[in-house]
């Protein structure tokens, strides 16, 4: 039961982060108090994180805070997962497909699959937004956006 507490798992995560940071600080060299080294602040902050996260995890073991499952009870977590996956896909395809195609695909996906709106709205909004932002940034503000390494040979502008 105690192991199902969100506080316990949150504390455990930051405990690992703190230990890792302290270890990295140690490797970077602590130096001396007269001349602190590159790892001085990392090491001590890592230990501070370990201390706080341990107290949080212990609180979880004592039964403090909500259960892990309660955090997502009644939530539309599928939407969150879809948006994160869409963003990751966007990141990988951004330079390969270019800004306009990627943005268009992302907007259509979000407005069709994640939280659906009528196609009569989603299609024009996506088109206007993707092309409009591209035009303002690329042509007016002269910000270079990826053209798409896979398709740049086929686009005339």
């Amino acid at each position, binding site marked *: 039961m105690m192991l199902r507490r969100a506080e316990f798992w949150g504390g455990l995560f930051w405990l690992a982060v703190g230990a890792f*940071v302290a270890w990295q600080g140690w490797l970077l060299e602590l130096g001396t108090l*007269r001349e602190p080294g590159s790892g001085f602040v*990392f090491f001590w902050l890592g230990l501070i994180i370990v201390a706080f996260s341990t107290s*949080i995890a212990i609180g979880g073991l004592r039964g403090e805070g909500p259960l892990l499952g309660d955090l997502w009870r009644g939530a*539309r977590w599928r939407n969150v997962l879809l948006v994160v996956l869409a*963003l990751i896909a966007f*990141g990988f395809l951004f330079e390969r497909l270019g800004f306009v195609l990627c943005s268009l695909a992302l907007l259509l996906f979000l407005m069709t699959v994640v*939280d659906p709106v009528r196609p009569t709205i989603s299609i024009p909004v996506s088109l206007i*937004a993707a092309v409009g932002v591209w035009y303002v940034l690329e042509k007016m503000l002269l910000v270079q956006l990826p053209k798409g390494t896979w398709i740049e040979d086929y686009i005339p502008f």
Partner: protein
Amino acid sequence: MDVIAGLGQGFLVAFDPINLLYCFIGVFIGTLVGVLPGIGPVSAMSLLLPVTLSGTPESGIIMMAGIYYGSMYGGSTTAVLVNIPGEAASVVTCIDGHEMAKRGRAGPALGIAALGSFVAGTFSIVALMLVAPMLAKVAVAFGPPEYFSLMVLGLSILSFLTQGSMAKALLMAAVGVIIGLVGLDQINAMPRLTFDRLELVDGIGLIPVVMGLFGVAEILTNIEQQVRRDIVQSRIGSLWPSKADLKASAGPVARGTVLGFLLGILPGGGAVISSFASYAIEKKLSPTPERFGQGAIEGVAGPESANNAAAGGAFIPLMTLGIPPNVVMALLLGAFVIHGLQPGPLMMSQNPQIFWGIVASMYVGNIMLLVLNMPLIGMWVQVLKAPYKILFPLILMFCIVGVFASGNAVFDVFVMIGTGVLGYLMRKFGYEAAPLVLAFVLGPMLENNLRKSLILSEGTFDIFVVRPISLVCLLIAAALLVAPLLPALRKKREKVALDATD
């Protein structure tokens, strides 16, 4: 005399047509993001940070400042009409503002919010103008120990004021410092936590981190809930408050203004805390406290004045000490740094046109806001009717574009996605992002001043306690850190956090 000459120079800068345009864009976008729930001034400013690169430093910073104080105005519209705070500082406006709207008095509620904001905004600019030069003279005497202790105090106050567990807030501040230190060591150029990635050698960018923690995380949190908006459907009517309304509001506006300005100077969540404090004071002072929560105009006038005055007060530590008191000011510091400027005690003498230009533009911006808010309420209501399912994909795309344009690197987009997921999980597990972001910005300065102090003192920590300013800051910080351990104070702090959540 110096002040008048400086202000004169400032108005020359502010009335430059291009700066007027930037000021207008800033307050307009500020009002818009204030009106729209789910996107706040932090997200908007991060999004527009790259745009400031195309103009002069003063233009960019005038626009960024406009977004901040504009959002304070805009937040009240959503609070009154939809019962959702457009941004955090308007939480308390929902209580009586929306009640007034439900009773057919949306107009006077919005009107007094705009008028009170205008009065408070103007007062805070005058005070900023008078206090900042004096404080800047004192700040010249600050050395590394004073700066270090002041930053520790700032982080302690913010951690104390955040909702929920203080251990979590302090943990977040420590994590923020570490993220801020990724990259080359400023003293000996040693790469730290770069994992042999070239993109990390220059450190992690402020924009992707802020956009992730605030923009993407906010969207992820919103889309997992069924957002329902209860927009007031009745006619808004005349915005001008009646004579009785004005009489009832005069005291709350005056008190809220002074209180907000003073709390705004302190590091931490000045605007939010001051609006709550103002509401509590007005309720206490009122001969009919039972009206509060039922549509008392004093409950709108006081808090709205307080949060706007606090927005002005927050500029003081940034402009005079170079230390941002909150996340929004941290972003403004980012804008200064992007342009090769360092706000601090020497800014008024080295870059007077920027300091006074910003101050003068705030006068102009406040008038623009009054003009913008009173007649354009109808338009903001239409904006509020836009469904979130159409807004969030667009906001997400703007986040990506803003992050990419700031560094021209897809790596930054991945940093934004990563911090977005982290921010979402942090919200779920009850960890606040604000201490992390402030510590992220202060981290390099904090480390630098700590190491310099230790080198100066030849390795003893006495240097932090033999200097009076440093000692006072550390004593207050220690008191704040110890306070939650005392049961009575812990209950009080938890109550403040609970009120803020409600």
